[in-house]
């Protein structure tokens, strides 16, 4: 077992060595520009890109003609949201999203607002799921796009994507999903789910950083987006720029591996995740955040009350995890995702996200449980809040001095 242990696979995943192996020739020998149509170097590159396009398409049940390569999910989200708004704004200027979306979606929506668009940010229920009745009520004849993520990056909650898509379509709007955390982890099928646009990224599924894709539906309806980058008209004019051939080859290979191994891996990871979760919630005053049924197989987000997340992470320095606490930021605001579930600030500050992955072993999970339990116990002995709780003092009755 190598220390420190990496349990932050929602932030990024290590690259699978099989992916690297597939990529290497495209840096040196097969270095051609995929747009060079007049010689063999270009053809070899183009062939590799075409193959990768098929691999990506297959993972999400799409046709290869519907895959646009980008620099990652952030670019895909931006291209989808801004691109749809610009293309369809004569039809309507309203977009619906949710408060728990990734910043790439929320900030792209803010940009749309600056361009004269209207955006509704749906609140979520206590378990992190979008309220379908609220979505339905928010739809207007002006609504052109509903953008709701597939699986949440902080709490792993899986949205009822199919139902959301049906509501969007009923009102004549497109449905887009940021599926960065879900693709390759759980079965995603753009046709079965009714997805019109989908963003994904290679580095969240054991591929390289700096490459991703946007799925854009071609039939029923034929979706168009306005390009956000002008240039040589690559990717059917939707995303200009010389293709990142090695990266694209890596993304394709990563998708292929996910198709082959997803089912068994999801089973293995959800069992490990459940083990971790039940071992840690044995601790007094610890809570799992987000819906526990509709959830990605590899994510557990747990709040340990009366202990601050950053301090806790320091006590678990052998574990690479993430916290919803924001003690490092100037604002001191904890995670907006956790807050939107109705968590109090102190509980949001007390959260730790464990993100398991393909290379996580049972031994590592056992070790993580041991280290976390020890750290929580140690820090609670240091915590005045824990002492007050143990003495039965109501913390809400105290007049805290704001800082």
């Amino acid at each position, binding site marked *: 077992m190598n220390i420190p242990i990496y349990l932050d696979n929602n932030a990024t995943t290590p690259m699978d060595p099989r992916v690297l192996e597939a990529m290497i020739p495209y840096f040196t020998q097969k270095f051609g520009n995929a747009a060079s149509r007049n010689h063999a170097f270009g053809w070899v590159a183009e062939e590799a890109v075409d193959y990768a396009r098929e691999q990506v398409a297959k993972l999400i049940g799409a046709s290869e003609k519907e895959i646009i390569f980008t620099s990652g999910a952030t670019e895909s989200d931006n291209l989808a949201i801004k691109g749809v708004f610009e293309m369809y704004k004569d039809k309507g200027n309203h977009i619906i999203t949710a408060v728990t979306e990734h910043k790439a979606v929320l900030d792209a929506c803010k940009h749309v607002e600056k361009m004269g668009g209207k955006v509704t940010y749906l609140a979520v229920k206590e378990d992190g799921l979008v309220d379908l009745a609220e979505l339905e009520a928010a739809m207007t004849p002006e609504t052109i796009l509903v953008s709701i993520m597939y699986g949440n990056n902080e709490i792993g909650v899986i949205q009822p994507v199919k139902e959301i898509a049906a509501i969007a379509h009923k009102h004549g709007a497109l449905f887009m999903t940021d599926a960065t955390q879900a693709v390759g982890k759980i079965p995603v099928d753009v046709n079965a789910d009714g997805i019109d646009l989908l963003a994904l990224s290679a580095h969240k599924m054991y591929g390289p950083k700096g490459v991703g894709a946007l799925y854009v539906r071609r039939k029923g309806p034929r979706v168009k987006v306005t390009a956000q980058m002008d240039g040589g008209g690559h990717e059917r004019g939707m995303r200009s720029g010389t293709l990142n051939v090695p990266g694209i080859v890596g993304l394709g290979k990563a998708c292929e591996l996910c198709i082959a191994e997803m089912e068994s891996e999801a089973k293995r990871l959800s069992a490990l995740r459940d083990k971790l979760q039940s071992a840690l919630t044995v601790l007094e005053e610890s809570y799992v955040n987000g819906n526990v049924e509709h959830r990605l197989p590899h994510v557990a987000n747990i709040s340990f009350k009366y202990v601050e997340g950053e301090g806790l992470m320091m006590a678990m320095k052998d574990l690479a995890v993430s916290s919803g606490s924001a003690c*490092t930021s100037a604002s001191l605001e904890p995670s907006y995702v956790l807050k939107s579930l109705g968590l109090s600030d102190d509980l949001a500050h007390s959260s730790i996200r464990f993100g398991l992955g393909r290379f996580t072993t049972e031994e590592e999970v056992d070790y993580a449980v041991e280290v976390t339990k020890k750290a929580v116990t140690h820090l609670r002995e240091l915590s005045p809040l824990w002492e007050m709780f143990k003495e039965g003092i109501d913390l809400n009755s105290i007049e805290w001095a704001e800082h």
Partner: protein
Amino acid sequence: MAYSDKVIDHYTNPRNVGTLDKSSHKVGTGLVGAPECGDVMRLQIQVDDNNVITDAKFKTFGCGSAIASSSLATEWLKGKSIDDAMKIDNMDIVEELALPPVKIHCSVLAEDAIKAAINDYRVKNGLEPIESEKVHH
């Protein structure tokens, strides 16, 4: 964020963790911060008849810097007169622990906790609290 060795040392081996008898007139308690901000610091001092701090204890809910700042504060308080303790400046803590700029807040909290503990002691013993006019760095 990379912390200094001193922060890590105080964090890993916190000095003077504990609780003094809050009801004793010899003890001053300062509780500052708020759970929603992610930091709560409780600092306590025990004062003898010569106005010298004979013991100091802390408990802190917060990040590594907050814990280290309060641990260091208790070390500095022990053996100091009340008047000298009042002079502890948050920037002294920042320098000693080499706190990164984003963590200066933790040192401010520690200075405020010291002053709050001293004032609690003063009020308990029939003295006026000392108003701090200082603007924090």
